[in-house]
């Protein structure tokens, strides 16, 4: 009898400690969402490197009684600290900087304007979010989705609206992976066949001096002007300096490969872990995802329209299709410009021309984030 008693009490204790006892419908739905995202990442190959760990983090976050959200330190807590204390986004930017060639931008600085124009999506979504009832800080964090820059979206969300981080990160990365589907119809609708066929002249050679001095000057200028984004821009430019200096190949290699991959795993898994049922299953999430789409479409349209403007001003020397690359999403947005351009006129290579506004978009989104932080924090 005593044996059965002990057996029953132990069994009950195991049950009470198990996840099943505290499992809610919400957890079930979110695990379903995680599985759907895993399917999109690994079967449909939509940004698998990011969406994969985000999806798995989402599944992990919805197991009750794991202690991931308690006070006790564990690896998942450490990953969450990396996000909450804004450690991972600047480290990702270090890797992005080491991978980025600013040559096309240095060869044609006017393309910076396209990077600025594409930020209009950010501010259209910000206004839209305020109109539907989000407060100003939440609206700014939602708007930055239009910049199509995952780390900056996460960085700004943590600072202005940490409770919306999961929805914003998922929206940002989902739309980034959908760039090849979202952008072409907007680009075609806003340009004529004649505009799409504009052939751009070859870019000038950029010297090593320019490549090395540029990251240093940008770091000094932006960090003094917008200190809240000094960590982001500073790391981006440090990575680029490793790449361009020619004497730090090992650091450049580590930044763009090993370190970037490690931090991507942590950042994406940690972002997924913000998607627990309590925070994510709200009507606001759907609104954020919708506003993110508005921001993305607005950014694309803003870049293309400004591209048309530059096309006329330059005497038909700028193809407006490169304007859409002003939303960051490096290098996918530039590839989309190239593909749409090639379809309009085979042999018209726009990729290198589109890389200028594309990397300008990274700087533009960070500047937009910095401006909003300076105004709202």
């Amino acid at each position, binding site marked *: 009898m005593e044996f059965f008693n002990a057996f029953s009490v132990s069994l009950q204790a195991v049950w009470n400690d198990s996840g099943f006892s505290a499992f809610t419908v919400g957890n079930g739905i979110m695990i379903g969402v995680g599985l759907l995202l895993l399917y999109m990442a690994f079967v449909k190959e939509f940004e698998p490197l990011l969406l994969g760990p985000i999806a798995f983090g989402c599944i992990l976050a919805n197991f009750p009684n794991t202690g991931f959200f308690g006070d006790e330190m564990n690896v998942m807590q450490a990953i969450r600290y990396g996000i909450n204390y804004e450690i991972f986004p600047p480290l990702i930017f270090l890797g992005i900087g080491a991978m980025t060639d600013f040559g096309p*931008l*240095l060869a044609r*600085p*006017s393309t*910076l*304007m396209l*990077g*600025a124009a594409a*930020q*209009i999506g*950010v*501010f*259209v979504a*910000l*206004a839209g979010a*305020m*109109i539907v009832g989000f407060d*100003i*800080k939440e*609206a700014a964090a939602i708007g930055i989705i239009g910049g199509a820059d995952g780390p900056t979206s996460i960085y700004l969300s943590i600072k202005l609206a940490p409770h919306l981080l999961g929805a914003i990160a998922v929206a940002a990365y989902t739309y980034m992976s959908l760039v090849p589907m979202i952008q072409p119809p907007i680009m075609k609708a806003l340009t004529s066949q004649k505009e799409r066929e504009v052939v751009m002249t070859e870019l000038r*050679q950029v*010297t*090593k*001096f*320019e490549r090395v*001095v*540029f990251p240093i*000057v*940008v770091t000094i*200028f*932006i960090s003094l*002007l*917008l200190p809240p984004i000094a960590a982001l821009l500073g790391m981006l430019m440090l990575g680029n300096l490793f790449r361009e200096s020619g004497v730090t190949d090992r650091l450049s290699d580590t930044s763009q490969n090993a370190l970037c991959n490690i931090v991507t795993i942590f950042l994406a898994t940690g972002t997924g872990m913000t998607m627990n049922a309590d925070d994510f299953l709200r009507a606001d999430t759907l609104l954020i995802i919708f506003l993110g789409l508005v921001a993305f479409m607005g950014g694309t349209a803003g870049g293309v329209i400004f591209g048309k403007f530059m096309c006329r001003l330059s005497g038909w020397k700028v193809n407006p299709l490169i304007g859409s690359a002003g939303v960051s999403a490096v290098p996918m947005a530039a590839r989309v410009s190239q593909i749409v351009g090639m379809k309009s006129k085979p042999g018209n290579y726009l990729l290198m021309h589109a890389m200028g506004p594309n990397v*300008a978009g990274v*700087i*533009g989104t960070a*500047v*937009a984030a910095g*401006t*909003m932080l300076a*105004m*709202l*924090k």
Partner: protein
Amino acid sequence: MKGDFLMSQPVTTNPFIIMMINMTVVFIVLVSLSVLINVIHMIDPTKEPEVKDAGGGDEEVKNETAAIVSKLQQNPAPAPVIEEGISPEVIAAISAAIACYGISGQVRAVRVVNPNRSAWRQNALTGGLTNV
């Protein structure tokens, strides 16, 4: 005190004013960066002097090429001795490789290496040619 107020309270909550202020700041910053890039280019001590007239530059290259061609036509280099059995494609590939290396001078002869020669002898021969 004013700074404290600004840090704790947004300056405005009108979405359109915020939108306009932010867009203006983004444009100003990126225009400034564009100016800085141009300044870097201007002060670059390593840049090659720019050719003022691109069309004229092309003309210059054309004239230079024409002068070389005419000089070669006047004093043609003696044709290299080519062993039988070597196709014109092989000769073209060898000439291109030599040109790529930037070696000046003339090709005197092209011949097939004796396949029966030992590796040691072949090495010694190549070394001797290199030393020449």
